């Protein structure tokens, strides 16, 4: 029994929503080595973005990720607006924040549910997804689609949110907050949940930077880094403070995301109260010139970076996408060894892997 077993975890595995393979070498039930294998959903989107018209790319980059799609589009549009020197109307900036935070809210809810599922807590999983469904409904009401909402456009947004819908968003998030108050503290103090997450997959503060981790994983290791701190879009008016935890284990990552859901609700309330009236789209002319721009925004999974370079035609010279999971995957090779096989699903999920993002 003490010989090494190699478990091919994935590419088809119930715990991964997307195809990723981890070859886990086990000694009894202890993981001694791990080798990630990617490449199951590489779609060549970076290349396709060079072939497309730059306006079409807004819809293309949205499809990089099925969960934080809108934020991809925002980041791409920000880069193009930087190159073409387009000023956004203030209302558009706020609307982007509102939709962005709604996306973060439903993504975190999805993640909390998946985490619960990874250690076999089905009722909790269903509860989180039940709450998530309300947010998806409000997204569909305001934009016309549930997840890939295609609401962003270069120079602003494509749809406006009516006052009636704004009120509805407020009531929905009030309701969500009330329901979350019922379950999040319960979950965070549950003995069995703590037993599975505390001290699992620890990344110390010192190692964090060298592993290149980003987003909630980095913040759970005690480093206050959040692209929203740069104040892009309307965030500069919303008095944003990042959520930081110190212990760097799966529990800290869950706590960071749980607190961020409350933070998102707060940001949404603030943004809706401050929402200025006016235009939602700036008209622009011509093609992006010969210039390059780097833009970064905060996705639910971490920091997203776009490098966009124009060449004066309607096509772009280069679109480079750095997604958060791409940075977080190398950290798995440091988190997994030494843990039990039973911890593997929890640890892998704790970085919130989005493989379609990673491979593009």
């Amino acid at each position, binding site marked *: 029994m003490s010989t090494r077993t190699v478990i091919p975890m994935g590419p088809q595995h119930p715990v991964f929503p997307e195809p990723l393979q981890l070859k886990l070498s086990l000694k009894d039930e202890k993981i001694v080595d791990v080798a990630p294998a990617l490449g199951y959903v590489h779609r060549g989107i970076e290349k396709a973005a060079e072939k497309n018209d730059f306006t079409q790319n807004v819809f293309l980059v949205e499809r990089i990720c099925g969960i934080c799609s809108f934020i991809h589009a925002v980041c791409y549009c920000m880069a193009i607006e930087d190159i073409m020197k387009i000023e956004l109307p203030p209302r558009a900036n706020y609307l982007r924040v509102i939709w962005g935070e709604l996306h973060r809210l439903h993504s975190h809810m999805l993640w909390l549910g998946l985490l619960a599922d990874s250690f076999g807590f089905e009722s909790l999983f269903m509860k989180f997804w039940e709450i998530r469904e309300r947010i998806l409904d409000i997204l569909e009401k305001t934009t016309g689609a549930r997840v890939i909402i295609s609401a962003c456009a270069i120079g602003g947004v494509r749809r406006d949110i009516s006052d009636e819908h704004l009120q509805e968003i407020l009531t929905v998030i009030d309701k969500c907050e009330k329901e979350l108050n019922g379950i999040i503290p319960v979950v965070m103090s549950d003995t069995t949940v703590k037993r599975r997450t505390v001290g699992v997959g620890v990344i110390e503060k010192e190692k964090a*930077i060298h592993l290149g981790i980003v987003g909630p994983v980095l913040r759970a290791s005690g480093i206050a880094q959040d692209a929203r701190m740069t104040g892009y879009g309307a965030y500069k008016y919303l008095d944003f403070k990042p959520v930081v935890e110190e212990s760097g284990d799966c529990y800290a990552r869950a706590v960071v995301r749980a607190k961020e859901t409350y933070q998102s609700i707060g940001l949404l309330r603030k943004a809706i109260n401050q929402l200025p009236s006016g235009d939602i789209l700036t008209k622009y002319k011509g093609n992006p010139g010969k210039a390059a721009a780097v833009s970064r925004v905060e996705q639910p999974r971490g920091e997203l970076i776009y490098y966009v370079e124009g060449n004066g035609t309607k096509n772009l010279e280069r679109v480079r996408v750095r997604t958060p999971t791409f*940075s977080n995957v*190398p950290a798995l090779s440091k988190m997994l060894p030494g843990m039990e096989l039973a911890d593997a699903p929890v640890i892998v999920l704790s970085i919130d892997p989005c493989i379609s993002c990673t491979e593009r």
Partner: protein
Amino acid sequence: MTQTDTQPQEKQFPVLEGAENITIDNLTARVKKLDEEGYRLLTATCLDRGEKYEIYYHFDKDLTMLHLRLLVNKEEEVPSLSLIYLCAFLIENEMKELFGVKFSGLFVNYGGRLFLGEDSDITPMLKCVDC
């Protein structure tokens, strides 16, 4: 885009604002210094510039970004940063695979089979795929 293929010399390429030029020889030393100063490696962007590769390394410290710009000939080997920043191994493997950039001292080498299939023999992100 076809212009790139026919007249690469005449084409003027934009340079990212505020980028710091760097060469193969002082890349490792510069990055080591940045590491000591507490910079995070965000990512690297590779661009096909006809005869050369242009590689941007993006760093961040306290919300300020710093870009290093490296121009190398297509045959030259670029020293890998994966021993300084572990996360660089995925980024470099990706460049190696999609652009054909040569790296020395890669920490984990996927051998060009990170994203592409076993039978793939092209570097798809180059401007002219067939060469």
